[in-house]
């Protein structure tokens, strides 16, 4: 009786292991501009673009998965790893050990959307549009085009050589962007931001983290911080439109010496203003804590507006 019980348990465990090791291997013809939706709650997923008009998925499914769903018709393809109804998808620390391991190939022109929870994603080469949303996991995106939207809550976002309308968003993670072009928008609540970008329009917002920007040929820059610091080096822009604001954080702007712009800097409640671009100094209001600095360089074609409540602001030159 005891032996039967042990055998039964062993078989049960074995059957679970078999489920855990369920593999997937699909390969189907799709349109070059297919709209592809992928849903995988846990694990690691790599998505690469190919020159064939084929959707391929291979690898192993999540140990807790109840199979998968694959639908493809009329230019729409959907691949979902079916999971039981879980309120909690496990600990972030377990992600290394649990979850799906998938490699997915899509056509270059795909309009891609990925959704996960405890999932890390690596996506490259998609030229249609890409939207990636995860909660606990990192996102790595390379050589994407058109509309690019990458979002996580607790995780890092790495964006490399992307071009288009790029939106990067995290709550607690860090964001690192290099070689981006087009329009770039980065938001982090507690994480830090680092970018080396050639985008013409850049918007950066951080609450507690720091933002370190190295921008080439930017035409329009908006950056804001609550408590964290902003540090922007602007190269090759002679008539930019820049707006920067902080509450108690510091902001530093390094500009071209030959910049042609009107400058308006205001520290509203005890903040400080330091100008190393020209010889003008900030003036303190006769009554109250406000101090301000207004001046123009060149023909005053561009515009630089900086505002703080109680932080410090600094203008520098290369």
């Amino acid at each position, binding site marked *: 009786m005891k032996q039967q019980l042990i055998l039964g348990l062993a078989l049960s465990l074995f059957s679970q292991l078999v489920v855990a090791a369920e593999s997937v291997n699909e390969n189907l013809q799709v349109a070059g501009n297919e709209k592809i939706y992928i849903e995988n709650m846990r694990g690691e997923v790599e998505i690469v673009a190919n020159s064939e008009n084929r959707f391929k998925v291979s690898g192993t499914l999540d140990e807790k998965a109840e199979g998968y769903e694959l639908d493809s018709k009329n230019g729409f393809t959907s691949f979902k790893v079916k999971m039981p109804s879980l309120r*909690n998808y496990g600990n972030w620390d377990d992600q290394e050990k649990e979850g799906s391991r998938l490699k997915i190939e899509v056509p270059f022109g795909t309009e891609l959307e990925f959704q996960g929870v405890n999932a890390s994603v690596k996506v490259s080469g998609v030229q249609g549009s890409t939207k990636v949303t995860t909660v606990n996991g990192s996102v790595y995106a390379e050589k994407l085009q058109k509309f690019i939207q990458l979002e996580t809550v607790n995780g890092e976002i790495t964006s490399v050589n992307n071009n288009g309308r790029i939106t990067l968003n995290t709550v607690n993670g860090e964001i690192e962007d290099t070689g981006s072009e087009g329009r770039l928008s980065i938001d982090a609540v507690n994480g830090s931001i680092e970018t080396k970008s050639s985008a013409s329009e850049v918007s950066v917002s951080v*609450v507690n983290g720091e933002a370190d920007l190295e921008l080439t040929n930017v035409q329009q820059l908006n950056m804001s911080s609550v*408590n964290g610091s902003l540090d922007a080096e602007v190269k090759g822009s002679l008539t930019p439109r820049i707006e920067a604001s902080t509450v*108690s954080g510091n902001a530093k702007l390094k500009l071209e010496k030959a910049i042609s712009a009107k400058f308006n800097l*205001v520290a*509203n*409640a*005890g903040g400080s203003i330091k100008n190393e671009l020209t010889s003008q100094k900030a003036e303190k209001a006769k009554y109250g*804590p406000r101090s301000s600095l207004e001046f123009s360089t060149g023909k005053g074609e561009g515009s630089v507006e900086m*505002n703080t409540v109680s932080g410090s602001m600094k203008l520098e030159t290369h």
Partner: protein
Amino acid sequence: MKTEHELDALIAGLSSELKPSRDLWPELELRLIPAEIKNEEPVPLRPNKWLSVPFAGAYVASAASVLFAVTLFWQPAALQPSAPVQAGLFNPQQVDAQTAIVYSYEQAKAEQLASMKVVDPVYADWQQQLAQWQQAIGQVQLALKYNPNEAMLLKQLRQLYSQQHNYLQKVVQSGLV
């Protein structure tokens, strides 16, 4: 110019010290935040001599937002006109820009908080996050008292509220999944 000179002369004539007519300590003591509440505070913003607003927790902000909306709409029955009250009595265009911003976002926030049921554990510290924005909003509002129509401050106020709104939206949606 005459007014400014007169003001300068009056200021010069003022005593540099002013003693309160009564002992202020008992009232100050009452307003001090208990130590256990202080320990729950998020990372404080950098202190500044002009900005000494006491920390207000997210629950206080939430309560304030509801109170604010209620105050704007509530009228005692005796004061109500005989004609039926029309919706939209509050016209943001008839108040100053700051009030309009605060009103619209606080109302939206009250609605968001009311719709909140379950919060995903990844947003466990949402109240602290909200409190940080609220503290920053408080600092901007205090600066606006010195410079009431400063466009950049108003823009900053709107931006902070907008960030807080977007964050809260994510928190609310996390509980709906």
